[in-house]
């Protein structure tokens, strides 16, 4: 556990040498998966607390289910989206190898879950002070969104280190004079125009992938629900797959104040 805590602390400090050297022994994929499981379980526990306090014996099952499902949500989403990301980034000439790409994304998920775990006390506090199921679900959606944005900032920072913008091959010269200056006239010096460094195409692939990851993650959350557990419905490990995440959120907003 101490090793995991130290590894998460290193990541949070922005200490990511694995982006430059594959030989870095820190942040191995297995260590990062373990950190994801532990941090996800912390937030899952806080989410499941609502079911545990508003149901009878079934509440404990909800607690167990949510604790297991939050890390599963993130890791399953990564599993689904990683192959396509790697293929497209390789096609876009990314210099990151498979393991380095996997470590980068696992590190981002770890950061995402660390932020989420830090919201666990607030979620638990609201759980103990509210009976509204829609409120608890929407609060968790909000926290998941904020944690996702911070994870996104981390990926962007890491990509800046791993895939620096490419400098142009040679500076473009200024416009070539179309006429020869007459003798005695002072030629006006034209400074070479500086072309800004071109962003690595692989970074665009990562940017598109982040959107795909978010959409797949939202739908994966819908498949794996319930995480909070509506006290008016019986406990189920998984609900039926009708509707979708976005329709579900709009329905909950409508139910919140009624």
């Amino acid at each position, binding site marked *: 556990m101490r090793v995991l805590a130290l590894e998460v*602390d290193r990541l*949070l*400090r*922005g200490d990511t040498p694995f982006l430059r050297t594959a030989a870095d022994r820190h942040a191995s994929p297995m260590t990062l998966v373990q950190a994801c499981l532990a941090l996800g379980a912390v937030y899952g526990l806080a989410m499941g607390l609502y079911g545990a306090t508003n149901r009878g014996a079934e509440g404990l099952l909800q607690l167990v289910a949510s604790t297991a499902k939050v890390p599963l949500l993130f890791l399953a989403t990564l599993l689904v989206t990683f192959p396509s990301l790697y293929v497209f980034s390789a096609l876009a000439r990314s210099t990151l190898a498979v393991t380095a790409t996997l470590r980068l994304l696992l590190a981002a998920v770890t*950061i995402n879950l*660390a*932020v989420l*775990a*830090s*919201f*666990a*006390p*607030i979620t638990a*506090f*609201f759980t*103990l*002070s*509210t*009976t*509204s199921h829609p*409120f608890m679900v929407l609060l968790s959606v909000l926290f998941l969104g904020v944690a996702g944005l*911070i*994870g996104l*900032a*981390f990926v962007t*920072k890491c990509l800046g280190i791993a895939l620096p913008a490419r400098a142009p091959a040679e500076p473009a010269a200024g416009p070539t004079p179309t006429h020869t200056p007459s003798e005695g006239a002072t030629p006006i010096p034209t400074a070479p125009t500086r072309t800004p460094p071109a962003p690595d195409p692989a970074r665009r692939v990562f940017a598109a992938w982040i959107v795909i990851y978010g959409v797949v993650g939202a739908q994966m959350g819908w498949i794996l629900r319930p995480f909070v557990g509506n006290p008016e419905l019986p406990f189920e490990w998984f609900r039926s797959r009708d509707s979708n995440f976005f329709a579900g959120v709009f329905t909950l907003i409508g139910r*919140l*104040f*009624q």
Partner: protein
Amino acid sequence: MNALTALLRDPAESQAHRASHRALLALTVAAAFTYGAFMGARDGRWLQALYSGTKVPLLLAVATLLCLPSLFVANAALGLRADFRRALYGVAMSQGSVAVTLASLAPVTQVSYLSVRAYGFALLLNGLMFALASLVGQVVLARHYRPLIARNPRHRFMLRGWLLLYWGVAIQAAWMLRPFIGAARLPTRFLRAASWDNAYVEIGSRLWVWLTGEW
């Protein structure tokens, strides 16, 4: 006294006055207790004064402690870990300034209680005092964040994020810990029987009813 000076002066102008943690904590608790006691001591309800005196420091502590893990992790994730101690000091100073401002307003609250006896007025008055103290707290926090933002503009995002999160939690904590004033027709209690509900859902429901006329 050094802690009080450090709280009230702009940190850019009073580098010599840096409050010790203990002095700052003691001053914050004492000031928050003072305002709480004055707030509850309406119509000679001394038990309510004791309860409210306990609950105001509790409110500040609960809201701050619940949000601190998020502040730490978000600071670290945004690469601001090295400045966390300064950010934490700023947060502590802003909490202290809220408590001291409230304590300084306590005599005004008490005199107002003597002149207007309506419960609704007391609610409104205390709401106003807390709003004023919160504004002071934000100014103090912004002063402490100024050098941090100059060093790294990401601190501006952290400052806004902290305020949003802190007030989100503090409003709910205040709702849970009510009553702070105590209605004359209700018996004096530490917490309301129905205190375990949600401030936002309650306010939203009332607004919904007001806007649509539907139950």
